Structure formats: C-alpha cells, structure tokens
C-alpha cells in the first residue's frame, strides 16, 4: 500500500485517530486503549491539583510512558486571556508548542466562541504556538482561523460528549470542498465507529475522540474498532466512492444470459 501519512504542521503521523485521555476507569484501561488504537497523538489537559487525589500524577506518568505526541488542550477556558495563559502553562509543562485551542462560548452545548477563538488563535500564533483550534463547522470562521495562521482545523461533528455523530453534513462537506488542502480533523461528538468512518469517507483527514472509547464497556476493544473504521473510511475516500443513483443497474452482465430468462417481462 502507498504511504498515506497524516501531515500536521510539517510532521507526519501514521494513525489518523487522535485519542483523549480523560474519563477512563483507570490509568491502565487508558493505556490499553491507547495501545489498541495505534494512535500517535494523545490529548490531555491542565487543572488545579486536587490534594485529595493523586490520579493526576499517575495519569501524567502513564501518558509520558506511552511516548505518544502530546496535544494539550485549553478545555474549560471561556475567555481569550484564560486560553492564552493556559496555553503558556501547557507549553512550559509539556514542552510542546502544539495546543488544541478551546474557547467555549456556551455551557449548554460547549460550543466554541468563534470570536474569542480567532482572537486567541492569532495571539498564540504570534507567540510561536502551533494552534489546532476546536471550532464549529462554520466555513467563514474556519477561513478566519486560517487567515490568522492556523494550519490545521478541528471542526466539531456534534457537541462534546454527545455521541451524536455528524449533525451538519452540509457544512462539513462545504468545509472539505472549500478547504481542500487544509488538514481537517473532526473533533467531538463522534459516538460510533460508523460515524468516524463516514467522516473519513467524506474526506476528513482524521478523527479526535475520547468519550466513545473511554466510556465503552471495553475501551481497548472500542479503540481498536475506531482505528479499523477510520482506516476503512480513509481507504474508501482514496479509492473514490461511487455516485448514488435512483435506478437499479445490474452488476452481473446481461449478455450471455440463459434462454429461460429471455422471456418478455409483463
């Protein structure tokens, strides 16, 4: 098979699945899921230390041991100032300029604030970050993010943690058609491997997900299922899907049909 790496900010990755590290029942379950997924990139976050819980230190140690590339997020930030400062703290702790930029505008659907997102992205890029913005599927927002220097975009499929899949196929297809050269990763809302496969068939470059794997009864098995679905969807996109049509068309040749099938249909 021809090599088909995912290219993000000049780096090549074999896997097109990016996996979150939250919500697993235990650090070991998380590690098993990461291994089963074959992912090259994992997301993680920063929070105030809870003195009663040492889970954070354990998970961080476990994530470091995986050797995967780290994509820290600014989850929970609602203002440009919060996001920029959390990104700076991430860069120091994780020693990477990569940041999954989240600026949340509404608590109900955790929808990105498009105005804050563009402003924060512009500031972070000025400061030398490689910004992967978690954005909506709005074409003009995506164009603005590219305009301030983002080289990768991560539109939502549906709101975080809902598992509703691709809610607005028209918008997603529009992004793919209008931004053919931009790496587009569907981030959030993917609940089933079939949904991830569909996004990949549409030509998206990768899938970022967390809850669907972490909350499965068997996270490692679900991680493997997603990896397979994403590979299948990617291969299908590269192979070229047939056009749908209304009328049936026989797949078995008509020429050479036995005589008893040659009677005229009523």
């Amino acid at each position: 098979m021809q090599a088909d790496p995912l290219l993000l900010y000049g780096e090549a990755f074999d896997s097109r699945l990016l996996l979150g590290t939250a919500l697993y029942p235990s650090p070991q379950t998380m590690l098993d899921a990461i291994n089963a997924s074959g992912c090259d990139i994992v997301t993680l976050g920063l929070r105030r230390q809870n003195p009663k819980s040492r889970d954070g230190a354990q998970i961080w140690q476990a994530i470091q041991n995986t050797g995967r590339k780290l994509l820290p997020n600014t989850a929970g930030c609602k203002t440009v100032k919060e996001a920029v400062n959390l990104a700076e703290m991430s860069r120091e702790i994780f020693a990477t300029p990569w940041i999954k930029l989240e600026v949340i505008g509404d608590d109900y659907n955790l929808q990105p604030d498009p105005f804050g997102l563009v402003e924060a992205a512009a500031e972070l890029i000025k400061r030398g970050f490689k910004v992967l913005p978690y954005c909506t599927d709005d074409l003009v927002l995506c164009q603005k993010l590219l305009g301030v220097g983002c080289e990768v975009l991560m539109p939502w499929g549906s709101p975080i943690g809902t598992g509703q899949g691709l809610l607005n196929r028209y918008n997603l297809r529009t992004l793919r058609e209008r931004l053919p050269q931009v790496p587009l990763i569907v981030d959030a809302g993917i609940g089933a491997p079939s949904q991830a496969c569909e996004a990949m068939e549409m030509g998206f470059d990768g899938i970022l997900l967390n809850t669907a794997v972490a909350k499965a009864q068997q996270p490692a098995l679900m991680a493997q299922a997603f990896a397979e679905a994403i590979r299948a969807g990617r291969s299908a996109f590269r192979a070229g899907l047939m056009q749908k049509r209304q009328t049936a068309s026989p797949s078995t040749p008509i020429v050479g049909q036995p005589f008893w099938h040659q009677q005229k249909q009523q």
Partner: protein
Amino acid sequence: MGFMVTISINDELQQFPAPPALRELLSTFSAANPEAAFAVAVNGEFVPRTQYDAVTLNDGDTLDIVSPVGGG
C-alpha cells in the same frame, strides 16, 4: 495582631503575616505534592519558571497552580 495578607491559592484563601515570595508558596505546594509537575499563574497571568524568584504576592492576589490531567 497586625494586618494579614490574604492570598487565594487554587481558590482557597490563605493568610500570611507578610507578602509571601512565590518561591516559598511553591515550595509548600511541592512538599505536599511531591510527584506533581506544575505551572503557575498569578492573577490569571502565566509566570514562567525563570520568574519564580522575582515574584512576591500581595494582599488580594490569586495564585493558580495547575498540573497535568487526562483531557479530550
């Protein structure tokens, strides 16, 4: 008892007899959380490691100390 300096550390109010040095507060944090990697913001502004010795907190300041967690 004279004037006390009140600092909010990770949303918990703490009082000090004099404005504490950031380095001193972080030493206390590290002693309580020996395994924790952390980064710091004072009044919502990131303070790089190289600046720890240069910062003293004043009455009403907030200190946020954050550490890695799983995230999506």
